[in-house]
């Protein structure tokens, strides 16, 4: 039922977008606020393994839509908000959410303050990860921008200070210090990741706090920028264990991840129409649970990628990346394909107009560390009766309209 509401809400958003689009040049001149939006529809098809949805049979459950309004109240003060809905396999369900809504007071170029619901920094692209218009590839490299953590790493309720500091002949330094928290729904990616790990039904996810810092150094070497982001958060999960008839009744459970840390280092070099970027990430998770017989929670993962985008013409861009994600478990076998996922991706993006683009993308993948069990039926997957395939191919296509 919730999903049905989500779809009708998305249809309303799309209809509003299509209706508003032709009016915007006039509206921008006459309305006291700026209104912009986008609608994306994608398709995923894999030859083996279901990834980010039921991709083996072909999945259109891959869309996003957003509408924002904003206004400069003075040269220093800006306010705005964006509504966002998405569907990616079992994630999102086209529920309309508040993506960001904040006031931004810029005291000077080197010091500003934002308060409200804010997009979270993380590498060079986390703040814009839902904006298909802003990059060549369809899927960001999952080694550094995993969909399984998206809900806790995309936006937060709180505040940040930010600014751009000139370094006298050494370029400039963009900084952002942030902190806050949020409550996340049971339909979120992090809730589903826990559901996936055992016979659990998650009812609430509470990000008790999130805090961190992001730095981007624009170096004196023209086109080169380097960055680092550190994020630390604590999450409480609660819900019910699944009943096993005649053996164990359903009972409440509590998981506390009191130490979830993410570190990202980034580099990007732009020369003419070529952009080369590389990022590496490490995530440490530590926590406890009251589920009987469960050990202390301890999980580490990491990844890196190397990406190149080239603009062939005003309208046509191509891109390529190699991405490697790996889980680090105690006594883990680095040759076990359930512990890694290596992805070679090739993309072609074409701007039909300034506000309408289409993309196609191929992924040649080895390993299956990032697959969700619930999307790949079979008890004990990937160790049970249905084995995941180590080598597989994913095809993606997507089109986006913006105004």
């Amino acid at each position, binding site marked *: 039922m919730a999903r049905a509401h989500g779809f009708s809400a998305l249809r309303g958003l799309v209809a509003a977008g299509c209706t508003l689009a032709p009016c915007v040049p006039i509206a921008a001149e006459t309305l006291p606020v*700026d209104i*912009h939006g*986008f609608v994306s529809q994608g398709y995923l098809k894999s030859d083996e393994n279901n990834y980010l949805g039921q991709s083996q049979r072909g999945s259109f459950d891959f869309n996003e839509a*957003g509408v*924002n309004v*904003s206004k*400069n109240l*003075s*040269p*220093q003060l*800006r306010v*705005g*908000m*964006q509504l966002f809905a998405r569907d990616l396999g079992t994630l999102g369900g086209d529920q309309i959410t508040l993506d*960001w809504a*904040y006031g*931004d007071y*810029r005291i*000077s*170029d080197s010091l500003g303050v934002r308060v409200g619901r804010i*997009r979270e920094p993380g590498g060079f692209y986390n*703040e*814009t990860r839902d*904006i298909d*218009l*802003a*990059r060549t590839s369809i899927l960001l490299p999952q080694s550094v921008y995993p969909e399984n953590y998206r809900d806790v790493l995309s936006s937060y309720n709180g505040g940040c200070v930010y600014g*751009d500091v*000139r370094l006298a*002949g050494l*370029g*400039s330094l*963009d900084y952002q210090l942030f902190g806050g928290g949020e409550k996340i729904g049971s339909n979120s990616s992090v809730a589903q990741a826990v559901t996936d790990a055992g016979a659990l039904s998650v009812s609430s996810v509470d990000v008790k706090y999130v805090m961190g810092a992001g730095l981007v150094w*624009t170096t*004196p070497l*023209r*086109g080169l*920028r380097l960055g680092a982001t550190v994020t630390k958060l604590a999450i409480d999960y609660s819900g019910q264990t699944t009943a096993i008839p005649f053996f164990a009744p359903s009972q409440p459970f509590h998981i506390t991840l009191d130490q979830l840390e993410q570190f990202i280092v980034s580099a990007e070099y*732009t020369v*003419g*129409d070529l*952009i080369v970027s590389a990022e590496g990430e490490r995530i440490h998770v530590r926590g406890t649970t009251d589920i009987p017989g469960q050990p202390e929670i301890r999980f580490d993962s990491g990844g890196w990628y190397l990406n190149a985008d080239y*603009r062939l013409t*005003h309208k046509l*861009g191509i891109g390529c990346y190699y991405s490697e994600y790996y889980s680090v478990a105690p006594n883990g076998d680095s040759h076990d394909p359930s512990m890694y996922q290596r992805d070679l991706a090739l993309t072609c993006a074409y701007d039909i107009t*300034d506000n309408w683009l289409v993309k196609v993308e191929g992924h040649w993948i080895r390993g299956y560390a990032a697959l969700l069990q619930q999307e790949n039926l079979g008890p004990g997957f990937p160790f049970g009766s249905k084995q995941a395939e180590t080598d597989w191919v994913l095809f993606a296509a997507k089109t986006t309209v*913006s105004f």
Partner: protein
Amino acid sequence: MLVLACLAWLGSQANAETLIIVSADATVAKASRDDLHDLYLGKRSTLGGYAVSELVVRADGDAHDAFVKNHLGVTASQFKTCWKKMVFTGQGSYPVSCATDADVVERIKKDKNAIGYIDAASPHEGVKTVAIGEPDGGQPKR
């Protein structure tokens, strides 16, 4: 004749010079290339200490392409992508596009916190020009 026409065209391109213009009331007279770069790519909101809240650009075309390439050191596509990121994360509003230099001048006259660029040969009575210098010489660093 064709050769002469080509030489004349090349000459006009070589002589094409851009003026940065602001309101006649603006207190800024000079700024660095880095200031201009950071302002037009949304990193900063001041030019030489003067608050700027509206960026005015020529609608897509040769004048805009040449400005972003020569003064900002980016391609038109990179400029467009930069502003899409700003708009859809709430960090800024698209620059205002004007079809002609005369429209740019009119827009600047109406908003004391706006900045724009025009061809040096275009009339620009009623607005102020900003000298763009490079304190440490050379091209913009980014």
